[in-house]
């Protein structure tokens, strides 16, 4: 029996790694990957709580919805990255503000 | 002689073809006998083994059986493919090594083993080496949920009897696209890259109708578990009347054909073999591969062929259920029969272009399968008084 806390620790570590990636990466696709890590850590928490605390599958519904949202996010974000690349010939996220106007 | 058979489909029935077909049945029967043997063993040992270990024994026997099948399958599938090709093309095919070339594939395998194992200088060595392994892992892992029968006490003979079996199948086959993409990118070759990109786009696209058609079956049977899907097809006229393909005629027949088409596309077979289209992309994603790594892609391809055929047989053709009662052999006969159909198509049809391939998927296969799902779900809903 793996205790609930272990899932939470792993999720926390994933979350922190994701945050680190978002903060330090310059490449937009890299940032996107880091965000996916954060989504996954949230999902682990949702499922773990639904298993250990709720004892039903309510949390899994939310996890499923999170996966759907992640898919949407990936599609839109990649579209934006492609537009950025067309414009700037690179995907450095620091220069994304040039897309304004 | 040739003039008498005006159509290629007739030629498959030609007199010379009889020998290899008998041979094929014999050989494939031997392969298929392995799970039967496993079944017999597990029946015999049922009484001696404590209940706690029974599951483990089933798994072990299943693993052994399937690894045996997967190792032997490509060898004889390749031989069979060459024979089918030869007889479609009015020639004899391999005849030298062994009787009617039966050992030819072993010779080729040994040759591939001893060939130089090249990694191109500018390739990405990690991805280049990992790709064939991922391909073969994804092909073999999917077999874990393929059951081949039910024991008399109701235990399912499979490596893993998952209650989400078909979902697992859909999920794990998507790994194949990754391996192809990996190979295409890691080779540092433009043709390989094109092949990888095409393969990924194709597999991702055709996964959607595959999933919908799986849902079509699930909606009628009401379960995701493969043994239960098969169990629902038992009985009926001559033992075949309740096969899913004959129900709600012709909805399920169309569904079966579409599923088979999607299977062709997911295994990159002609007319959907654009990722390795040898006339335009040299060899597509395995342009740079040689020796054993190349053989791995082949193993994966033939494994996938058998996989989609067996899945189609399980979901639409009643699996091990048939006119003579349920028998694991029947499943293999159906599976290999569909494999032969795949080969026959390959040697008869030209190749589609990449945009036409996508058009087939998005304009025809997906809408039709959605429509089928809607109708079937509606009928089921009305039948359930809802």
């Amino acid at each position: 029996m793996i205790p609930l806390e272990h899932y939470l620790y792993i999720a926390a570590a994933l979350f922190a790694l994701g945050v680190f990636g978002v903060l330090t990466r310059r490449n937009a696709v890299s940032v996107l990957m880091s965000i996916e890590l954060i989504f996954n850590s949230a999902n682990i928490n949702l499922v773990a709580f639904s298993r250990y605390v709720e004892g039903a599958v309510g949390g899994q519904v939310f996890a499923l919805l999170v996966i759907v949202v992640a898919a949407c996010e990936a599609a839109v974000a990649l579209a934006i990255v492609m537009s950025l690349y067309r414009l700037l010939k690179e995907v450095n996220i620091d220069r994304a503000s040039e897309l304004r106007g | 002689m040739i003039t008498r058979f005006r159509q290629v489909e007739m030629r498959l029935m030609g007199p010379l073809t009889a020998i290899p077909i008998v041979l094929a049945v014999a050989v494939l029967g031997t392969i298929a006998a392995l799970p039967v043997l496993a079944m017999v063993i597990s029946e015999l040992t049922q009484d001696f083994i404590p209940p706690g270990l029974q599951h483990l024994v089933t798994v072990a026997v299943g693993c052994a059986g399937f690894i045996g099948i997967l190792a032997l399958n490509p060898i004889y599938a390749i031989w069979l493919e060459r024979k089918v090709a030869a007889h479609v093309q009015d020639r004899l095919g391999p005849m030298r090594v062994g009787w009617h070339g039966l050992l030819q594939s072993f010779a080729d395998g040994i040759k591939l083993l001893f060939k130089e194992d090249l990694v191109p200088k500018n390739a990405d060595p990690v991805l280049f080496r990992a790709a064939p392994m991922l391909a073969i892992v994804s092909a073999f892992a999917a077999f874990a949920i393929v059951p081949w029968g039910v024991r008399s006490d109701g235990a399912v003979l499979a490596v893993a009897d998952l209650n989400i079996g078909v979902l697992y199948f859909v999920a794990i086959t998507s790994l194949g696209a990754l391996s192809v993409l990996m190979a295409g990118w890691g080779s540092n070759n433009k043709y390989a890259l094109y092949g990888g990109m095409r393969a990924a786009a194709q597999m991702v696209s055709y996964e959607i109708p595959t999933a919908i058609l799986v849902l079509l079956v699930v909606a009628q049977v009401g379960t995701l578990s493969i043994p239960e899907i098969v169990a629902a097809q038992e009985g009926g006229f001559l033992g075949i009347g309740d096969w899913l393909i004959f129900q709600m005629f012709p909805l399920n027949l169309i569904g079966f054909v579409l599923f088979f088409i999607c299977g062709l596309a997911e295994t990159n077979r002609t007319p959907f073999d654009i990722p390795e289209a040898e006339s335009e992309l040299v060899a597509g994603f395995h342009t740079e591969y040689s020796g054993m790594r190349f053989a791995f892609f082949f193993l994966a391809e033939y494994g996938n062929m058998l996989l989609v055929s067996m899945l189609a047989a399980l979901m639409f053709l009643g699996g091990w259920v048939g006119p003579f009662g349920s028998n694991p052999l029947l499943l293999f006969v159906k599976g290999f029969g569909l494999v032969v159909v795949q080969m026959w198509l390959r040697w008869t049809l030209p190749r589609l272009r990449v945009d036409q391939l996508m058009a087939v998927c998005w304009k025809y296969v997906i809408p039709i399968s959605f429509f089928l799902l809607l109708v079937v779900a509606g009928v089921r809903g009305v039948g359930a008084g809802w």
Partner: protein
Amino acid sequence: MESMAAQAIFYVVAALVLASALYVVLGSNLVHAAFALVAAFFGVAVFYVYLGADFLAGAQVLIYVGGILTLLLFGVMLTNRIYDLKIRTGKVQVLPGALASGLVFALLIWIIGAVDWGAMDTGDPGPSSEPLGRLLVGDYVLAFEIASVLLLIALMGAAMLVRRRSGS
């Protein structure tokens, strides 16, 4: 409940997930990072299996590995000169980033340790697909519908964004 072997496998997988995630945020080769992400997603799917969410595990592999990851790889390959194999990427503000994420991590660890979650052993949950389906089209049908609409809109928006403008 699980055997010792199963527990050991869990921790091995956990280590694998964390190592892959570490490579995703630290590694310099983008394509390798994307494939490391595959391993991380797979590990998470294994966690779901351990948590009795078998349907979710399947969905995770299907959508993340089959869909999102392929999309990401396309993104990586298309946003670079397609013939330089070694796609490198740099990092900025490593120290502040490490500091901030370390703080977040420490905070989370402290919270996890400090709170009593009231965890209970609910036993083998059984197949999850049926209750999940009933919830999705029952209690949560609004969320389900909104998610579908969101998916549709996102797809259309993405298609609009990457559409080639004529003349540019």
